[in-house]
């Protein structure tokens, strides 16, 4: 068996080693100064990359059942994970604090959306050709679900706003206005970026300058508005992707070259920033979320996908947590750099690691029972 555990988790471990909990190369006292620019850039980059995937033509070309998968996942996240996260956070805080429960539950629930897009590790060498639809369900369904929940995440975190005195209050009007202003900013950045790309043509250095400018501006404006950088950058990407086809595809290809590097950076930052003081409650909530994923996510993929995709190792692909979950927790940490947010990040990391190990174990046992014919069907 080839055990492929996503490299991101190794970067998380490296981050933990570098962070204040172990070797302390990045000290706790000046962590904000050192890491905020990198965090903003990473969040902006991830958001923009994901947003650019939402091109109208691509979405229209997807089979209808993908939307069924996304809707089922949305229901699952909203109802089951939302309720469980609220109860879990309430118990964790040991008191009812509207702002605290709202934020914690929103982050944990939204982080449960979608799944990792990795499909190879579940079948050892390569996904069998006959599981092509299952692979589409994992990849397209996972991307769309993450994108939808990034927007919901922004909305939920904006509703509970922290005033200048530090008190968190549920204020849909004020939060809505901030989110609307951010959306306006995202549209403006996208329009300006589109025009800049038209001038830049195929010049790679100019494309890079424009892209970095858009990432920084979207993430920075989000920070100023108190809205997650991930959400505003994703909005910018969505608008940019749908303004016009010409030139944007080239730009998208250009920035996608860095996806592995950015994913590693996000994981590294998560490792550095997660709270070193993890106790039983964090582990319990993390394992609880992982357990729920194990139970419910395969159902979403099986019920949503057509019959051919129902069986096989990829049906458990949904168990593995999406890397976007880390980005969501980091985005929240940018707005509120508190110990509570660092612990919430730790919960997500624990859930993610458990979820990364589970499918490997399960696909291993699945392979042991596989017939010889299945093995012969492995695609080149």
């Amino acid at each position, binding site marked *: 068996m080839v055990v492929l555990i996503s490299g991101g988790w190794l970067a998380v471990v490296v981050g933990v080693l570098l962070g204040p909990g172990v070797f302390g190369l990045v000290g706790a006292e000046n962590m*904000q100064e050192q890491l905020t620019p990198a965090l903003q850039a990473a969040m902006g980059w991830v958001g923009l990359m994901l947003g650019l995937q939402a091109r109208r033509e691509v979405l229209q070309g997807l089979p209808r059942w993908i939307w069924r998968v996304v809707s089922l996942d949305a229901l699952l996240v909203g109802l089951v994970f939302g309720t469980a996260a609220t109860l879990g956070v309430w118990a964790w805080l040991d008191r009812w604090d509207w702002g605290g429960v709202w934020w914690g539950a929103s982050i944990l629930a939204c982080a449960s959306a979608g799944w990792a897009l990795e499909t190879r590790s579940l079948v050892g060498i390569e996904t069998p050709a006959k599981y092509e639809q299952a692979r589409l369900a994992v990849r397209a369904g996972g991307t769309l679900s993450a994108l939808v929940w990034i927007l919901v995440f922004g909305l939920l975190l904006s509703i509970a706003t922290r005033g200048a005195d530090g008190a968190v209050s549920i204020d849909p009007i004020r939060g809505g206005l901030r989110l609307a202003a951010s959306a306006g900013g995202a549209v403006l*950045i996208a329009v300006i970026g589109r025009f800049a790309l038209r001038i830049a043509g195929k010049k790679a250095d100019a494309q890079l300058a424009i892209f970095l*400018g858009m990432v*920084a501006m979207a993430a920075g404006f989000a920070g100023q508005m108190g809205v997650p950088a991930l959400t505003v950058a994703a909005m910018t990407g969505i608008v940019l992707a749908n303004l016009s086809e010409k030139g944007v595809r080239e730009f998208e290809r250009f920035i996608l070259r860095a996806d592995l*590097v950015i994913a590693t950076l996000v994981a590294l930052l998560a490792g550095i920033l997660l709270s070193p003081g993890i106790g039983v409650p964090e582990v319990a909530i993390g394992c609880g979320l992982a357990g729920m994923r194990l139970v419910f996510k395969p159902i979403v993929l099986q019920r949503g996908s057509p019959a051919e995709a129902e069986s096989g190792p990829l049906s458990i692909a949904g168990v593995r947590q999406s890397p976007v979950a880390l980005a969501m927790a980091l985005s929240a940490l940018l707005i509120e750099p508190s110990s509570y947010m660092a612990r919430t990040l730790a919960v997500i990391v624990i859930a993610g690691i458990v979820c990364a190990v589970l499918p490997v174990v399960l696909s291993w046992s699945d392979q042991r029972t596989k017939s010889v014919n299945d093995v012969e069907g492995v695609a080149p």
Partner: protein
Amino acid sequence: MDRRTLLIVLAIAGVLGLAWAGHTWSIDFTVADASGGGPAELLLTDAQGQSYAPPRESLIDAGANVGLLLLGSWFAGVLFKRFGLPSITGYLCFGILVGPSLLGLVTTESKDVLELVNNLAVALIALTAGAELKFAELKGSLRSVVVISIGMVVGLGAATVLVAPLLLRGLDGVGTEEGMTSVWVIGMLAAPIIIANSPAVILALVNETGIKGPMVQTALAITVCKDLLLVVTFAVMITLGASMVGGGEAIEGGALAASLASKVPGSIAAGIVVGLGMAWYLRVVNAHLPVLIVCACFGIAIVSGLLGLEALIVALVAGVLMENVYSERAEAMFTEVNRLSLPVYCVFFSVAGAKLDLGALDDVAFAAIGFIALRTIGVWVIARVGTAITGSPPGVKRWLWTAFVPQAGVSLALAAIIQTQFSDQPWAAGFYTLMLAVIAVHELTGPVLMKLGIARSDGRDDQDSPEDAQA
């Protein structure tokens, strides 16, 4: 004004409007100090009852400022290019526009955060400058490089020290307490700033015009050689100055020698180590080159600061080593460096522009005009004499001086170090303003002049690079 120019102006207005909106509507977590003093940092309490400091305003603004400088200055560069001016003049002007002197969108506090990006830029520019020094191509002009470099440092330095008493009479705090001592000290401290020119401007113009002939090669080699001499000169001047007026850290002669002996060879040794490390990475890994470059440049900036080395020399040496010893392996790396250079130039030059305080120029106008005239005439004379003695080609002989007019980051950094080191002196603020005024004029006029010089000397008088024409 044609439609595209109008749209570019509108895009700049849009970027500025967004930055203004973010700046105005940003959540401010600072509250007035209970004692009625300045703003105090607020400690908030999270849902678990733990206190934490909310993000500082300058940190919140940092991302938006980087975006503003990148997008805005890029558009400004495009706009200036449409009028036949160098893009970097556009970046500088945009920096001045958004800096504390005019719109105030990039504040003094957020400039500290931008220093991080600036340090990366300095290392990347030095790495590129080092890579442009190809020993094989420089063999023919080695004599002129040595003669002009020494001529600039000795001739221009001496002229600055001698003329300083004449020009500095009206400057606030000069000669009031220590007689003529402070005038000579200021002259000594001004000399390295007057001598320095900008390797970044040369590289940016090469990038923009696509012209890289003998004049550019010679100018770059002289600039790099001059930078090495400047590090030593500056350390000597600042130490002597401190011991003469008692400002900053007065260092004993022996300690000065020890410091110099460790700084320059130490920086060269560190540069060799970095170069070898990069060569090893390219041989063994050879992937994710932008990551290698960014990490190397940040590493150079941070480690040099910690070890008291000169980041500029470290990166220069690494670049020279890569280009001349491991040129085959380094080719792909320098292609990536070129790709990264445009965003770096946008931020670097716009930050340089934002640092200029236009409000204080009136007070130092006389002295500034004097130093500008001295520098321009001095550069022209030394370059003409040096090229004549060494028998340089006619184009180089006539136009080389234009490459030494532009100033930017190196000069600004030297001025800032002097201001910090001598902050207890009554003339420190006035001196800083004066130097900024001199640098500002050379920053804005230098690139225009040099672009003309490159076109006349090294090639064609074109506005667009081959890439532009293709696009």
